[in-house]
């Protein structure tokens, strides 16, 4: 069972507020002194230091992408090696997390998937809405059903998404990237980010619903 704190997704999903797209860096932070590094760079931190700040988050992303701790380590290490090699192309004060994710994501497709992705066609797949199904079949509030699902099972559902859908969920839902930043990392138009995200969420709903049914959290015959 998972405790979802009300403020848990503060940076990712509290709807109804003004989008802070222009102000937001992908990592939600803005460090004084970095945006305008002074002569000599006294006010800015070193590239390595800033890069290493993102290690945990990159590792978690790598784990979700590769689904394997050994491969995740390799992927992260290669990402940092490449980042080091191309550090001159990184502009201080811009979104380093997004930059690192873009490197990692490209490496993932090159090394682990043997090339750049084709778009996935999943017409008709994942088009079951948890909401509609639960509405029809149970009297349990949908959020309550979700709360009864173990955290491991949620992670598994994310990891079972096709990679192209999984990476959008990782960037937008887990890392809190704006659509624009996610589109930049993935090298696709914003519309593509939106459609992949929408499909990914439908697939997640479907997977979690199936799990809820299999594990007896909800029963398909209309009883709880």
């Amino acid at each position, binding site marked *: 069972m*998972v*405790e*979802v*704190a009300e403020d*848990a*997704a503060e940076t*990712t*999903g*509290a*709807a*109804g*507020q*003004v*989008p*802070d*797209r222009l102000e937001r860096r992908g990592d939600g932070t803005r460090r004084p002194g970095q945006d305008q590094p002074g002569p000599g760079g006294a006010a800015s931190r070193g590239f*390595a230091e800033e*890069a*290493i700040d993102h*290690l*945990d988050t*990159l*590792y*978690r992303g790598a*784990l*979700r992408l590769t689904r394997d*701790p050994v491969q995740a*380590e390799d992927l*992260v*290490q290669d990402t*940092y*090696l490449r980042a*080091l090699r191309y550090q001159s192309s990184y502009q201080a004060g811009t979104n380093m997390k997004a930059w690192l994710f873009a490197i990692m994501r490209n490496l993932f497709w090159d090394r682990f998937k043997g090339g750049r992705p084709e778009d996935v066609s999943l017409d008709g797949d994942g088009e079951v809405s*948890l*909401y509609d199904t639960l509405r029809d079949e149970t009297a349990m509030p*949908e*959020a309550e059903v*979700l709360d009864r*699902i173990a*955290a*491991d099972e*949620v*992670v598994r559902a*994310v990891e079972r998404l096709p990679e192209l859908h999984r990476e959008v*969920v*990782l960037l*937008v*839902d*887990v890392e*809190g990237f*704006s*659509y624009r930043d996610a589109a930049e990392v993935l090298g696709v138009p914003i519309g593509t980010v*939106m459609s992949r*995200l*929408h499909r990914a*969420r439908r697939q*997640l*709903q479907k997977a*979690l619903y199936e799990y809820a049914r299999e594990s007896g959290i909800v029963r398909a015959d209309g009883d709880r």
Partner: protein
Amino acid sequence: MNCRDCLERLDQYVDRELTDAEIEEVKRHLVECPPCEDHFRLQVHLKRLVKVCCDQGAAPAHLRARLRQILS
């Protein structure tokens, strides 16, 4: 705004990708439409759940040490 328009914008609403005017439109519809409001709550909940569940765990210490060496 009708339900169809609202549901089409729900992802963007949940992800804070709408303009102020669009946010107001969706909000106004949600207040008047319990089924759409339920959709919205479920979406927000799912997004939080994914965030909370996938955002756990740190990189192994040996990896951090190795990278520090590489980067120094």
